[in-house]
Every structure is written in structure tokens, then in C-alpha cells.
């Protein structure tokens, strides 16, 4: 069987697993709750602006920040969902023995792993793009705010999910399902915190602190991509209103768009970590 066909069969199986194990349902319920809550919040914001409680500029600034905050919630759901799905579907299957009969078929392990990864990518990115799009449309309907680059922002959120689940895939080839999920989420959180610390360093002009963010964004590109997405969601007038250093210090605003170099690095990072995962899985004794 060709490697591409194997990968597609396994990817379809992974998606079917996500659906049958009610992961899709759980994620859909969480997303609906988050959408409803944020819809109510944005409509309150619009009502405040209409009644003259806040200026329209302040309303746009608030809408822009809250949008980023809600998107962070979605990216967290996507991260948790894919991280805790990748563990059981990969290392869980090798631990329980489900993988034995599958890998005794004429399939290459790298093709099997690629299939699992593709299934998870489709699940994670599909979720973030659909939920994010629903949120952007909701904000437009309730608060009349339309982000400057919604497509770029959603693509970067999807890329962030891909980075995290590639890391989880590598971990799942080496450690237990539970450990792989916990370590991946831990690193994701730590990188975000390091990004916030780096932002404070930038705002305060402290090079040492700023470097913490830079280094962590290189080691695990989730936070860098997230900042790029935030930048594409937020209103450009925010800089005129609160100044660059304040933007840098605030965790739900981003000072600059992503560079092409950083995007290339992220792609290379995914290829390298994915290759490492394939190597680790191919050498594993089942």
C-alpha cells in the first residue's frame, strides 16, 4: 500500500475516532458556550458605546482586546483538545496493543504517523478556523468590529495548533499518553508566560527579560504565532491610543506582525520535530 494511501486511511480513522469518542461534541459544546458568553459581552460593550458610557474609540479598543482574549480561549481549547487526543491516539494505541495488528500490515510506520498527524491537524486547525470565524462574525454583528486581517489571523492560530500537536506527536512516540499531554500543555503555558515576561521586558527596556520571550518563541513557536495572530485581529488604531510600550506590556495585544523569517522558522521547526517523531516511532519496539 502506498504511503500516501496509508496516511489518508489513518487520517480518516483519527478523525472518526475524534468524532466517535465524543471529542467533537465536547469541543462543540465548549465553543458554543464561549461564543454565547462573548456574544453577550460584545453586545453589552456596543450598548455602553451607544448610550455614551464610553467613546466609540474606547469601544473599538475594548472589542479588539476582548476578541484577542476570546481567541486565546479558543486556542487553549484547541491546544488541550489536540494534546490530549494525540497522546491516547498514538502512545495509547501502542500501549494497549491496538497498534500491533495495524502496524503488522504492509504499512510504513512513518506513513502511519503522518496519517495520525494529518488527522489531528485537520481536527485542530478545522476547529480553530471554524470557531474563530464564528467569533469574528459574532463580533461584527454585535459590536460592529471587523479585524484588519482575519484570514491571516485564523491561519496563524491554525499554525499554532499544528506546532503544538507536532510537539505532542513527538512526545507521544516516547512517553506515556498522559505524560505527553501534560508535558505539551505545560510547555505551551510556559512559553506563553515567557512571552508575557518578554513583553514586559520590552516595555521596561530590560534586555535580559526581553530575551526570555525571544528565546522561548524560538524554542517553541506557539507564542510567536499567537502574537502574530493577535496582531492581525487587533485594531491598528490601538497604538495611537495607548502607545507602543503599553501594547508590549499587555498580554492580549501584540506590537508587531510576524516576519517571513519567523514563519519560515516555524515551518522548519514543524518539519524537524515531525521528522524526529517519525524517527523515534520507527525505532520503537512495540
Amino acid at each position, binding site marked *: *500500500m502506498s504511503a500516501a*494511501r*496509508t496516511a489518508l*486511511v489513518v487520517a480518516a*480513522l483519527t478523525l*472518526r*475516532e475524534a468524532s*466517535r*469518542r465524543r471529542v467533537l461534541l465536547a469541543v462543540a459544546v465548549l465553543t458554543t458556550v464561549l461564543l454565547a458568553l462573548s456574544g453577550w459581552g460584545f453586545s453589552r460593550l456596543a450598548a455602553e458605546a451607544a448610550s455614551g458610557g464610553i467613546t466609540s474609540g474606547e469601544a473599538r479598543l475594548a472589542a479588539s482586546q476582548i476578541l484577542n482574549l476570546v481567541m486565546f480561549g479558543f486556542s487553549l481549547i484547541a491546544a488541550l483538545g489536540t494534546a490530549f487526543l494525540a497522546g491516547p491516539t498514538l502512545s495509547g494505541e501502542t500501549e*494497549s*496493543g*491496538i497498534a*500491533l*495488528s*495495524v*502496524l*503488522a*500490515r*504492509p*504499512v*510504513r510506520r512513518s506513513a502511519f504517523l503522518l496519517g495520525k498527524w494529518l488527522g489531528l491537524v485537520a481536527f485542530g486547525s478545522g476547529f480553530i478556523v471554524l470557531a474563530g470565524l464564528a467569533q469574528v462574525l459574532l463580533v461584527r454583528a454585535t459590536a460592529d468590529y471587523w479585524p484588519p486581517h482575519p484570514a491571516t489571523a485564523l491561519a496563524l492560530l491554525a499554525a499554532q495548533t499544528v506546532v503544538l500537536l507536532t510537539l505532542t506527536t513527538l512526545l507521544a512516540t516516547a512517553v506515556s499518553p498522559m505524560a505527553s499531554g501534560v508535558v505539551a500543555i505545560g510547555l505551551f503555558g510556559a512559553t506563553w508566560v515567557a512571552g508575557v515576561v518578554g513583553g514586559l521586558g520590552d516595555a521596561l527596556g530590560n534586555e535580559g527579560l526581553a530575551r526570555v520571550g525571544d528565546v522561548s518563541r524560538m524554542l517553541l513557536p506557539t507564542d510567536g504565532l499567537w502574537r502574530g495572530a493577535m496582531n492581525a485581529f487587533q485594531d491598528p488604531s490601538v497604538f495611537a491610543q495607548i502607545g507602543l510600550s503599553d501594547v508590549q506590556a499587555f498580554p492580549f495585544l501584540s506590537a508587531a506582525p510576524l516576519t517571513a523569517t519567523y514563519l519560515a522558522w516555524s515551518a522548519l521547526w514543524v518539519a524537524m520535530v515531525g521528522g524526529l517523531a517519525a524517527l523515534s516511532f520507527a*525505532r520503537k*519496539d*512495540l
Partner: protein
Amino acid sequence: MTAAVTGELLDALPEAPAVWCSGLRKRYGSRAAVEDVSFEVRRGEVVGLLGPNGAGKTTVIKSLLGLVHPDAGEVVLLGRPVTDPAARARVGYLPELFRYQPWLTAAEVLALHVRLAGVGAGAQEQRECLALVGLGDRAGDRVGTFSKGMQQRLGLAVALVARPELVVLDEPTSALDPLGRADVRDVVMALRARGVAVLLNSHLIGEVERVCDRVVILDRGRVAASGTLAELLGQREVRLELTGVSPAAQARMAVLGRVERSGDWFTLALPADDDGDAVPDLVRDLAALGARVHAVEPSRISLEERLLGILREGADARAGAAR
């Protein structure tokens, strides 16, 4: 030489054995699990893999299927090196640890394996396969609702569904009731009748003795003995209780070979080429020579006794070497 060219050359050779392995070695840390294991399973042959717990049977099986990477040694399946995934295209496998996707139905599990194997076994063939293992009426049920025995039956169907030329069964009856064991026996017999090679690892020695053409006995990761059942178990014997034995009757018995006497009981070793006539002919002749035949008991050393003997010899040899 590329794998494709090697594959073509191997295809051109006369039909290769179903399994050929040579010099397999595998260590886990400082513990040697498999040491220099070599054997083969010819086409259409049923070979039993026997040995105590921890003898390395499952490690050998997993090495044959490319699931475990041996530290040394070569494996060729159906004429192709196991490092080429295509070697496993016509191999069915029931693992010792049988688990299937609990979120799929039994029919979906079979369909998945048919797709992965890349064979054209249609829906009807898949249904027949489930019916063969007694799951015909559970095809649409989720595997998660199956008992262990039913999951093992499903595993057998998975091993059989993709038109295999070699079937590897690792403890195929561990979760089955006596009826299920008889079913597995029938399946193995049917496979042999169709020319499908079977490698069977089982603790149930009686099962192995009934269905296997040859046996490979592993002990502490090494091949302690191997051969056909006749080779391993030696000659058959017959015990006779006789009175009124004349010298002529004694001479008649001596024609067959060595005779041991204990009171009225005579124990005779039967010739290796006996086709089943030796005992009835002897009894007829003894009666004609005036001997009174009270009892005739054919006996053979059982595989279990032989296995225990081989394992004890191994343990004694190790103890001797340690002294």
C-alpha cells in the same frame, strides 16, 4: 541493490518459505530475550512455538513481523525481507495482546484491515470471515461492547480477512472457552488444507500436538529443540498383557524390535515406518501362536512430557555449568 530489484530477484526464485529467520538476537537492557534463534516455516505447514513463560516466544514473533527490531539476525517473510513492508502484505496476525479500536464496529475493523493490507476482499468476504469466527450477528456492534473472548475471535477474523498466505497466531485461545478452542483448531486445520502456513504460539500443548506438523521449542531465548512431532517424541510403543506365551510367540514379538518384560506385561517399541498395521498383525499372529491376549495399550510419550524433559535437561545443564 535497491529493495525493488532485490524483491524482483526474490520473486523469481522458487517459492520461498513462509518464514525464514536466522540468528535472531534481542536484548532488553542487560537481559537477553532472544539468543541466536533460527528456524523456518514452509508453505502450508503448521509450526508450533512452545516454551515456558519468558522464553522469548512473543519477542520472536514480533521480530518476525517487524514490530520489534532485533539487534541481529535476518527475517524473510514469503520471500521478502521483513524490512520491506510489502513482506507483510499476505500475513495475518493475532497478537497475544489483542485489542481493537473500541469505537469501531467489528465490520469496520475488518474493512480497515482490508484497506491497510491493500487486498480486494469485498464486503461479502468480510462478512463470511466474521461468521467463520462466530461473530456473524455482531458485525454492526462496537468492539467496546465485546467480551475478551469475542475480541479474540475478532482478532482471529482480522488475521484471516486479507487472504493471508501466512497466519501468525500468538496465544490464540487464551480468552476462549473449550468450544472456542475447538473452533480455532478447525480454523488452523482449514488453513493448512488451503496451503496457508501457520505459526502458532500456544501454552496449550495438547492443542499444538493436535494441529502442528512441526514444533520449535524455545527456552531462555534459544531454540532448545525443533523437529516434527515424530522426531521429537521418538518411537511409539505398545504394551501387551499376555499369558501362555510360547517361545515362538516371543520370537514373533522380537521381530518388531526390542522387547521388555515385566511379569505378564510386554513392552515393544514399534518401528518408525509403522503405517498402523504392526499392532493388529502382531495380535493376530500371537493369538494364532497360542498366546492369550488380555490387554493391548498403545502408548507414546506425550509432547508435554517431552517438553518438560527438554526444559529440565536445559536447567540441569545450566546448573552443571554453574558448579
